[in-house]
């Protein structure tokens, strides 16, 4: 491993996690590690367990065996509410907003957990400073936002929970190339301006590879490749898909 990571504290440590949908095994002894404050991309073809891994971390889908440690504490059997309170925010891919609520209401809902409730004001200021665009639209109904705006709102809502680890599921899915840039610009802002750890799950390599410090590849439910982002090219990752 790189020297840079020898001293960094481990934020999330996943060891040999198995997970099923009924009889179908989706994750097979999947393991990965996140250091505090780094941005990591998890690539892999469709239907090989990337989103499931995020759901398992955030406690929505059960891990049958294996261990998940967050800041040293075991969370594999913890309820999703508790996990949010511990500071892990999961940002699902499509349809991730409450469409009939306003932008502000969606954000306030992000701060629902007990720890974040007292800091709604501060967190709002912080989110609006990061995305001034959202402040202009705060009273707008979420369904009227554009694709890029709603993705940004989803990320902001994750930040409202006071999270120190963001799990972002396919931030670029269904977006035009320009809006993709905006969304990744937003994640880059988080990377540069905060010490939040970010795990991005992506199928598309381009943007996420530029942003990430390290890269994992997940195939057939197994993490089979781990690289520092500079040491791997887009072509190599895409070759591994097939």
């Amino acid at each position, binding site marked *: 491993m790189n020297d840079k990571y020898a001293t960094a504290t481990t934020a999330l440590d996943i060891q040999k996690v198995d997970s099923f949908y009924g009889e179908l095994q989706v994750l097979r002894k999947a393991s990965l590690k996140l250091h505090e404050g780094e941005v990591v991309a998890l690539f892999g073809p469709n239907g090989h367990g990337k989103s499931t891994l995020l759901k398992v971390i*955030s406690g*929505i889908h059960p891990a049958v065996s294996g261990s998940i440690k967050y800041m040293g504490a075991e969370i594999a059997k913890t309820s999703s*509410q508790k996990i*949010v309170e511990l500071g892990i925010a999961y940002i699902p891919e499509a349809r*991730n907003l*409450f469409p009939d609520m306003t932008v502000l209401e969606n954000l306030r809902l992000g701060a*629902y957990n007990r720890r974040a409730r007292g800091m709604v004001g501060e967190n709002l200021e912080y989110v609006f400073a990061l995305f001034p665009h959202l402040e202009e639209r705060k009273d707008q109904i979420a369904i009227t936002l554009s694709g890029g705006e709603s993705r940004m709102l989803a990320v902001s809502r994750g930040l409202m929970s006071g999270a120190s680890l963001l799990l972002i599921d396919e931030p670029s899915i269904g977006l035009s190339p320009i809006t993709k840039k905006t969304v990744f610009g937003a994640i880059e802002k988080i990377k540069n301006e905060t010490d939040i750890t970010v795990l991005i799950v992506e199928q598309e390599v381009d943007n996420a590879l530029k942003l990430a410090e390290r890269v994992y590849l997940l195939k057939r439910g197994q993490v089979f490749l781990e690289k520092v982002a500079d040491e791997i090219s887009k072509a190599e990752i895409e070759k591994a898909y097939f």
Partner: protein
Amino acid sequence: MKLTDFNWKKIAIILGLLFIALYPVMHGDTYIMHIFILFFVWALVASNWNLLMGYAGIFSLGNIGYFAIGGYISGILAKSFGWSPWICIFLGGIGSMVSVTLFVGLPALRLSGIYIALLSLIFADTLPTILTQTRSVTGGAMGLHDIPPLFEGITRIHSYYINFVLFLVILTIIYKIIHSSTGLAFVALRDSKDFAKTLGVNEYKEKIKVFAYVSFLTGITGGFYVHYLGDISPTTLAIEPFLLAIAMMEMGGIGRFPGAVLGAVIIVFGNEFLRLAGTLRLALLGALICAIILFFPGGLMQFIDWIDSRIGRLKTSKAT
């Protein structure tokens, strides 16, 4: 404040409330005042129901039962022990809250959709049987009579203003609940349970909370109702009040805040004045409900949105 900040809805609400507040002084017909009081009470029942069904998305069909429990407890306590009706009303609310949370709320944690509807309906349906079995206390099928009024020498005008204040207070509470993080959590659970959980929303806690709030507020409303009328009987639990309350919600717009109040205006006043039509009364009301649902499936609130968009279009065409 700029002139454009005024919107017609705010003006209509203010004028409406002013009219209600001044009515006893201006005209003061005791019969009309009685209908207004019925309107206050039913608007609260329907608004609470809307909080449970429209906002939290819990298909409860037992709300008239929650109302009757509050009324009966308060009436029985005031009549048999001679306690102050104000305390009895509060205890009635608590009684309703405890029994509903225990017998409907807790089992509902394990149920969803139609099964909650069945459970709550069964809960409300057992009440008439319980009432007839406990005739010595509840008066059985004959009902409970001579329930003491809120205070000696109360007049219609007093009752009118007391119920008006109750109406304003409980609607304000409902409004506050809807716009608090609890209310947002109700809507989040309704729209997507799994997703709400990922935001840290505690499903069980929120469900129990909404049952507790709604049954308490509905129970209190029941208490005020029986102390105003002076009697209550199992006919309260019959099919007609149940259907009318649902109609208020449907007509107003489910899951929209003042919707149930608007529905209550139409149903309560329509129901009274259509008595002139004799047996056609319910048929006419039914036709009205059908027409509204046909043209505005979102109820009167959708009609208001439609007027709003028309006005908006007028404004922009004038501006250009």
